[in-house]
């Protein structure tokens, strides 16, 4: 990839490769499925009548409003979770900052089905918390009822998008900016409001727009809470109903894509006309200061409260995996390690498949994410924005649509040498995961690039470096934080993806962890083992995240000494 970025032709070649990939593996399969949205259901002729029907149907109008409301509120609530965690851990000398950052990612990894059961057992109407509240005080709190329940659960689930991207952005701010502000007399909240937060804006907007898009297009949580008067669940329910092949499901998919692109465009507008790039790249992130004891206590209090809240589903999952029978009671009836013993034999293959698929997919995502971000922000190629839009459009495509599209498009194409349909080769699962998770990596990479001043590259080129060398030695290292953030989000979420995988797994030996969990969760006796597999998934992703954070930190400390050589440039 790097070698390809050379002179004028380099970026064009990158655009061609990325564009072709997106065309073959995203646009074609999806168009292959959703063209029915533009067909008259009776005659098969091209028409927009289905879209007229959409706006005429009161259920869909209500669903649109509900979806917008939930997505917007989820951004607000998840910001409340993410801001303190990101700020405290990047700004102060804080013991356990890496641990907090790692734990803060865990909520993103909600294994299918078991995560939902665990959450209901803990927070549901007859979950542990409410059973205790009822016993002690005689009232219950509807944590998981209706739209507000969806907002709470979505916020718990997706706030890490903001946390990761905001932390990466905060770490990217040079301390000389802050020093200048302090020299001019700013401190405390004013410093944060006027200097630190505005400079971290690209990261925040990247995270917030992902939360908005993801919540807007999410199927799992509303269905778990049995809220179906929202757009994405409506699309899913109509597409996957037995017998009925209602074009409205595909119409809603098209509408979701349009809404998502509009939201994305709005976030572009929010950042347009402002320059977030800072020239100084020597300081290795914000200055960290020590906290006074009472401040420390207060910060830890807030952090622990947030972590307890957002990790409660995983706490429930842990109990579920060790519990014998857990039914309408505060805690399981007894504890056992039998579930882990039961999955240990089968889990090795699931784990290695998951690591392989999610790892490859995330690697593809950050490569393409970096490439797209570079082409969009650093070149003047015509139509470059469309790469970004198309890649982001993937966030709005229901997994089942992509899965059907792949089967329809690639099943009759046999891969040479191995002589198997492309759609039943394990590589297609990697491609599907890469496509589905690319938006996460792309937003992270874009945010990272926006914080780098183009002058640094110009300086390198003036000193005689080629474009390729500049990208390799200047741009990529400076983007490292954002790239790792993108890798982590793509990897963590790909590791528990199910809706496309379930359509594409064609033999047991190819199945990833999420599929194993799904299999267990089809029978009453499988709940414990399913939860045990879920914990295995969480632990693996947790370790990967922790290692990535250590990696960023090592890089940062490597860079830090530079500050003594060129203080504040």
């Amino acid at each position, binding site marked *: 990839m790097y070698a390809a970025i050379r002179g004028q032709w380099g970026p064009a070649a990158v655009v061609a490769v990325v564009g072709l990939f997106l065309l073959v593996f995203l646009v074609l399969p999806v168009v292959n499925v959703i063209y029915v949205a533009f067909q008259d259901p009776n005659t098969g002729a091209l028409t927009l009548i289905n879209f007229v029907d959409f706006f005429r149907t009161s259920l869909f109008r209500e669903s649109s409003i509900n979806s917008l409301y939930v997505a917007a509120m989820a951004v607000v609530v998840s910001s409340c979770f993410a801001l303190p965690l990101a700020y405290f851990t990047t700004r102060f000398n804080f013991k356990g900052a890496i641990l907090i950052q790692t734990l803060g990612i865990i909520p993103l990894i909600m294994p299918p089905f078991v995560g939902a059961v665990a959450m209901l057992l803990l927070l549901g109407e007859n979950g542990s918390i409410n059973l205790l509240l009822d016993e002690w005080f005689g009232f219950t709190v509807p944590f998981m009822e209706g739209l507000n329940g969806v907002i709470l659960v979505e916020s718990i689930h997706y706030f890490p998008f903001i946390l990761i991207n905001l932390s990466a952005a905060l770490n990217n701010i040079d301390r000389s900016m802050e020093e200048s502000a302090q020299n001019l007399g700013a401190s405390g909240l004013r410093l944060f409001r006027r200097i630190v937060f505005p400079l971290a804006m690209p990261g925040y907007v990247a995270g917030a727009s992902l939360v908005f898009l993801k919540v807007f297009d999410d199927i799992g949580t509303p269905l778990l809470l049995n809220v*179906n008067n929202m757009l994405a669940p409506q699309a899913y*329910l109509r597409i996957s109903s037995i017998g009925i092949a209602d074009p409205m499901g595909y119409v809603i998919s098209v509408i979701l894509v349009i809404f998502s692109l509009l939201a994305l465009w709005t976030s572009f507008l929010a950042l347009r006309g402002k320059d977030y790039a800072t020239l100084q790249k020597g300081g290795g992130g914000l200055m960290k200061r020590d906290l006074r004891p009472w401040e420390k206590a207060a910060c830890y209090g807030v952090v622990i409260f947030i972590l307890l809240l957002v990790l409660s589903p995983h706490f429930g999952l842990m109990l579920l995996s060790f519990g014998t029978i857990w039914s309408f009671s505060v805690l399981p009836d007894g504890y056992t390690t039998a579930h882990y013993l039961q999955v240990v034999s089968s889990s090795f293959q699931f784990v290695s498949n998951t690591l392989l698929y999610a790892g490859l997919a995330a690697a593809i995502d950050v490569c393409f994410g970096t490439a797209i971000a570079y082409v969009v922000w650093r070149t003047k190629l015509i139509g470059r924005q469309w790469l970004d839009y198309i890649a982001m459009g993937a966030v709005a495509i229901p997994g089942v649509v992509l899965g059907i599209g792949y089967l329809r498009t690639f*099943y009759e194409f046999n891969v040479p040498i191995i002589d198997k349909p492309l759609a039943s080769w394990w590589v297609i699962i990697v491609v599907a995961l890469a496509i589905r998770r690319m938006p996460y990596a792309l937003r992270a990479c874009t945010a990272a690039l926006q914080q780098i001043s183009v002058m640094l590259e110009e300086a390198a080129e003036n000193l005689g470096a080629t474009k390729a060398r500049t990208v390799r030695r200047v741009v990529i290292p400076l983007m490292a934080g954002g790239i790792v953030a993108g890798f982590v989000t793509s990897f963590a979420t790909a590791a528990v993806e199910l809706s496309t995988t379930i359509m594409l797994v064609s033999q047991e030996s190819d199945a990833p962890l999420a599929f194993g969990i799904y299999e267990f969760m089809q029978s009453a006796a499988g709940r414990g083992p399913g939860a045990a597999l879920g914990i295995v998934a969480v632990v693996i992703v947790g370790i990967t995240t922790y290692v990535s954070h250590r990696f960023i930190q090592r890089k940062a400390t490597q860079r830090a000494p530079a500050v003594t050589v060129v203080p504040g440039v």
Partner: protein
Amino acid sequence: MTIVRNVSGILVAALALAVAAVPFSAGAVENKLVIVTSYPPDTTNTVKAAFEKKNPGVKVEMLRKKTTAGIKYLQETAGNNRSDMFWASAPDAFEVLKGDGLLQKYEVKVKGIPQKVGAFPINDPEGYYKGFAASGYGFMWNTRYLKAKKLPVPKTWADLAKPVYHGHVGMSAPSRSGTTHLTVETLLQGMGWAEGWATWKAIAGNFKTVTERSFGVPDGVNSGQFGIGIVIDFFGLSSEASGFPVKFLYPQVTTLVPANIAIVKSAPHPKAAAAFIEFLLSADGQEVLLDPKIRRLPVNPATYAKAPAGFPNPFKDKSIGAAVKFDLELSKNRYNVINSLFDVMVTYRLDDLRAATKAIQNAEATMVGKANAGARKLIDEAKALVAAVPIEAAQAGQADFNNIFKKKRKKATTKVTGRQAEIEQAWDAKVKANYAKAKNLAEKAASMM
């Protein structure tokens, strides 16, 4: 260009290899079998182990997909089929595949399987799919939940409509789960169109939730999210066998329906597939179904001799599944309309339906022991509004009308007027207005007391 030539070279080579590799296995059973199934590992692994023991040399590969995904998978992969069998519960899933010409006929050799279980023929009359187990529908409940909330154990469908159960019942939607569809259809056929829907809506008014997948119901009851779930028998029986504090009961109006298996058209391993069907229906295969993790009703009456005490036996206990003579043709003809009606009236308008039901229940509670003809009339009116169905039974069964709900028209000449979305919007407007009005009337009645 060289790349293109290289690729085509490889393609030709691969093609030659593929042709050379076509197995010649006339006579002998093939060494592989690929089964697309919706069953959990507890079921498939147990049956697979037993089958492979009987047929050494055949390696069975289970491809687990939920029923809807399985149908889509077979439809999409038909051009290059690699699957041998489809193995799932709902007969209607097999009807869909049969309709698409994706199944292959097979004549069973094993003897001793009766023609019918309950009132339902065990095998597809046209010979495309075979029943290997029977399933009935009923309800399961969480004993701890009922005790804590001081609820009595329900015995009949009508019980579930009682005010005590408000917010305590869960079910899946017929459009989501083939088994749920059969439950809905059974009651409609057993009680008649108007009364059947009235009963469903009265029960649905007490719903806590409509789950997105059929296993969501036993899951919810097992964890105590709601107390009572309307489920297929083995969900209840296997949950109980797994140690959850739950029980299962067949109500009077139920139907027994076979769970099925079929050979996929142009299956790569037809002989192994045939051997699998024969095994499943043999005495050994039938006995495997009694395993506590599986708990399905065998279709061979002789197998019940080995069942644990208290295990339901539809061939002896004629009260199970005999009350309704299930009309498969009628069910097939109005299949999609029933799905759509249920979703419009219940699934997507559950909040409105619940509010109206609650208002009626409150009004009736205030009426107890008092006579007020005016209020009674209002309540009856409210009830009629809730029960109202936008279309009559005759229209629901009409072929022309049903075609609106199918994407694939059988013939180009099939005339279709109207679109599903258009019709659903009209129904929805009517239903929503009815629920709102019913709520008003009931509240008015309550205020008259």
